[in-house]
């Protein structure tokens, strides 16, 4: 559950102060599938960094599952990301030197799970994305769609409360893109909270609800 109030994030560009987020207030409940939509430069990437606890707001309040994020140390934020958030990136962001299974195991290593439990959870996640037959392949040996599925498996392996997908179809062709969105819908139907960040309104239309961002403000929300 995400609860944001008057979130402001500003950057210093030379002598100018740029407000990437200028007082964003929004709520996302558990089990929702929300798309955050906006053109490039609208501040949606900054918003995703803050939702994902990769960055901290300059002012305003952000509570994730009832916990005020601003108060946490770097170490605690790493732990919150590890346990509560599953990331899916536009560029897949898999480690190239290790195979699919090891990539999926990565967040579980940082959870200090023992070897057998880690392997079981990673295999389960890979089965859910339909890649059980590719676990020994390295990212370079997989197609773009398959790589993104591995990334989805990595995001869900640690059983997070929320999946945060940043332009997950941006590097994929339309057909594979649709498959990934289908996979996200499926995960949503299984009860996962999903936040999808995109500039593409047709993809956003697949979500339950859209939040429009422009110039650092929330311009409105639409239920689909």
């Amino acid at each position: 559950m995400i609860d944001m109030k008057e979130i402001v994030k500003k950057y210093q560009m030379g002598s100018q102060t740029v407000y990437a987020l200028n007082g964003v207030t929004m709520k996302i409940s558990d089990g929702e599938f929300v798309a955050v939509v906006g053109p490039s430069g609208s501040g949606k990437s900054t918003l995703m960094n803050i939702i994902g606890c990769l960055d901290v707001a300059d002012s305003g309040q952000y509570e994730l599952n009832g916990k005020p994020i601003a108060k946490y140390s770097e170490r605690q934020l790493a732990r919150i990301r590890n346990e509560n958030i599953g990331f899916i990136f536009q560029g897949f962001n898999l480690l190239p030197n290790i195979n699919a299974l090891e990539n999926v195991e990565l967040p579980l290593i940082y959870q200090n799970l023992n070897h057998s439990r880690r392997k079981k959870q990673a295999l389960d996640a890979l089965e859910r994305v339909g890649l059980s037959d590719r676990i020994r392949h390295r990212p370079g040996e997989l197609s773009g769609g398959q790589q993104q599925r591995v990334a989805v498996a990595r995001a869900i392996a640690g059983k997070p409360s929320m999946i945060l997908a940043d332009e997950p179809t941006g590097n994929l062709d339309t057909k594979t893109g649709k498959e990934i969105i289908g996979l996200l819908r499926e995960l949503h139907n299984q009860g996962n909270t999903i936040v999808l960040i995109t500039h593409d309104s047709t993809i956003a239309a697949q979500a339950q609800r859209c939040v429009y961002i422009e110039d650092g403000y929330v311009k409105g929300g639409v239920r689909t």
Partner: protein
Amino acid sequence: MIIQSLRMAFKSILANKMRSLLTMLGVIIGIIAVTVLISIAQGTTSSVTSSIESLGTNLLTVNIRSFRNNSLTVNGLIEFAEKESESIGNVAPIVSQSVTSKAGDITYSEGTLEATVPGYEKIRNLSVEYGRFLTQPDLDNRSYVAVVGTDVADELFGTRNILGEKIRINGYEFSVVGVLAEKGTTVSGSSDNRIIIPFTLGQRLLFSTGIRTFYVSANSPDVVTTAQSVLEEYLNGIFSTSTEVSTSGEISNSAYTVFNQSDMLTTITDTTNTLTLMLGGIAGISLLVGGIGIMNIMLVSVSERTREIGIRKAIGAARGAILIQFLIEAIVVSGLGGIIGLLLSMGLIVILTQALSISLALSPAVAEFAIGFSLLIGIVFGMYPANKASKLTPIDALRYEG
């Protein structure tokens, strides 16, 4: 977590085999330099000290410099030795000179004539292989008898059991009554070229009067200092006119010098220890350079893998986890380099031992030090890059296009 980091470290080392090998090479060469040089230094030290010890560490050599008041006699010395038998074992005056000896038509010019008394063989650790050593009657009768070293026997007769054979020196004929056992070549040259004759006869032959040089053996290395002070007291009594008392109250006597073999041993040991340390230090510099190589490559590795660091941080790696990962990688590289270097230097030491025919051995202490030091280098030079990696923020690292 540590096991996982170790696995990751080996994976990334294997992913860049050539680079890892070149990085390790610095440590490998450093470790070889340190261990081989120290082994050579230690090997030389022990061979020098053992050859000095074989001369006897309980040996005192006295040289008389004063021509005046020299009332030393063979009997006087023997009486003194008997009186001070608590600390002093044997006393032997000696006159020596290089001589040319002949047997039949064969000439041997490398011999050293040593005129001395019975007991000399005990002082110099000589043993007789055939026949006997000098005896008191030989001395009293000024008998023309000689005890010779193996070189003399080999050169003049081509065989060693030459008892009863005659050799001629300066026109005098000596019959061989004993042949010494072979001693081999030491730092002080060959000691198998001796031709030992009675002291009394030697004085006459070499036109030498009085006693100019004599050896004293202490009963054991522990009482060498006692023996030396007893000896100096005795000599000060004889050369009382040359005694000077310095302002600090020390008695010095310019009439004689006493040379202590164990003092020399201490000096040599000190010198070689310093030499060992110096060699080790110089070799240590190459190890340091190897460490800087590791730091350099780790810094490259950190910037190459900025994105990986970003991914790891985004999915939940804390600073400590990243720090440990890169630190372990540096330690594995330098530790592996240390082990490989140690194995290579073991081989090199075996080869050098064969080639230089000196006994070299890699002492366990040096091996432990080498491994320990290479691990330490990994920690010291890995810390900075690892810390740099751990400080990257996940957003910046993810945005990095490498």
